[in-house]
């Protein structure tokens, strides 16, 4: 990372300040608790799935700007999508952060989420960005607790 502003772009700062879909969601059909014990990021994700579509999704918790903005942008981007597409996004987001998917070259459905691509150059923050996605994966698969450690 040549400049922290490459990562801490305005969108991330803004979603950190005003996270979307923040709060509790009851009743829900799926939920999971994501923990990053290294830095204390902690999110609870609740999802309503009906007719194979993510009808609603909300998160609660605390964490750094990267994890909070990643959670916020994830909810915005998966809400209303078929579960299969949400799963594909989980996979593609992880690949992007691992550096095996270049959003500028490889076909993907990540859209605006590509702004997290810079995290791959910051190994210590990878887990923060991936936490909500790992939690979504667990929720959709009926696992109640997930740790990125």
């Amino acid at each position, binding site marked *: 990372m040549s400049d922290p502003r490459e*990562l*801490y772009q305005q969108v991330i700062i803004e979603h*950190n300040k005003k996270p979307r879909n923040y709060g509790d969601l009851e009743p829900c059909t799926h939920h999971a608790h994501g923990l990053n014990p290294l830095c*204390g990021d902690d999110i609870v994700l609740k999802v309503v799935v009906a007719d194979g579509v993510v009808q609603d999704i909300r998160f609660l918790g605390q964490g750094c700007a990267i994890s*909070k903005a990643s959670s916020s942008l994830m909810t915005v981007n998966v809400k209303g999508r078929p579960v299969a597409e949400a799963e594909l996004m989980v996979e593609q987001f992880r690949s992007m952060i691992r550096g095996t998917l270049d959003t500028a070259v490889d076909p993907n459905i990540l859209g605006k989420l590509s702004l997290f691509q810079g995290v791959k150059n*910051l190994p210590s923050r990878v887990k923060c960005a991936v936490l909500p996605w790992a939690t979504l994966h667990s929720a959709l698969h009926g696992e109640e607790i997930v740790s990125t450690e």
Partner: protein
Amino acid sequence: MTTATRTPLDVAKIRQDFPALNTPFHGRPLIYLDSAVSALTPRPVTERISHYQSYEHTNVHRGVSTLSQEATDRFEEAREKVRAFINAPSSAQIIWTRGTTESVNLVAQTFGRSKVGPGDEILLSAMEHHSNIVPWQILAEEKGARVRVIPMNDAGELMLDDLESLLTERTRILGVTQVSNVMGTINPVKEIIRRAHAKGVPVLVDGAQGVPHLPVDVADLDADFYVFSGHKMSGPTGIGVLYGRRELLEAMPPWQGGGSMILSVTWDKTQFCGIPTKFEAGTPAIAQAIGLGAAVDYLKALGLERIAAHEHSLLAYAEERVAAIPGLRVIGNAKAKASVLSFVLEGIHPHDIGSILDHEGIVVRAGHHCAQPVMTRFGIPATTRASFSYFNTREDIDALVSGILKVQEIFK
């Protein structure tokens, strides 16, 4: 004040001993404010380790070769250096471990296992590192005992008025850190030990953050156990110390079994060595022990009192500078503090602060510092912690302050 304290440290000269400080980091000079997580290793220590490993190495306490005898001598000289450094009565009471964590586990699994029973109590302070909590919780779970806690106030000082009521007839041991790794609080361990002893309770002092910053005298403290790590005091990782009172160590059963720690082995019965060998099964961390001995020499040459005076003046300067930053709150305002400055910034998570400071070439610790109960006590998930060592300068602190202002600018 002694003459040695009045002559300040020659910091510019000291910095020449740390190659990392003279090597660009993200294209800038490295500003290392993270000695509380692990101290940088000065060249005389790394050179001593390299020399031992290159020219003097073989196994210790084995065989009749001259090389083995000399390796053994160097290894035992290091033990003697550590003994003198903390004023222990005998080098037999200096047991090598992997570090503070292993030292506490050793005590919990030997002394603790033989002394703690159902309904008994283990008393710990509210500001312990996980290494002085979890081994006791494991023991308490196994034995049906319970862990009780000495509370602390909002300044991060232990509340000792009611200590006697926490020291009950069921209390089997009291564990307390000499210096808080999160807040830098220097606890009055000598007084705590005196009051615990008055109730017949032995005390384990976690000296991991104490021994690099304060002159330590275990005899004067009257500590029953005193534990610390090499890597927090300019030595290598993988080596640490358990000091114990002789009669306690002698009465404790061995911990790990294996080579070195035995007098004789037959299928019917094995006889164990006396202290310290009884607790040192297997081939020890020889190079690391010798490296720790070199670190003791290095710190002694600088002078612990001069180190403490330098670090204290850095802390005072840092506290004054950060007091002018709006939205910054210092966690831990004890009257007696070592050179640790933990803080939170309104609306900005410590990990983001740490990442941005890192880019500025400033290394700090951001996180819960392996002391989650302290975070819970203050209602925060994490802090950013700058810790100052004998090689740090006021310019380092100026850079920290500029870095914090830059973080606030990005998050504006």
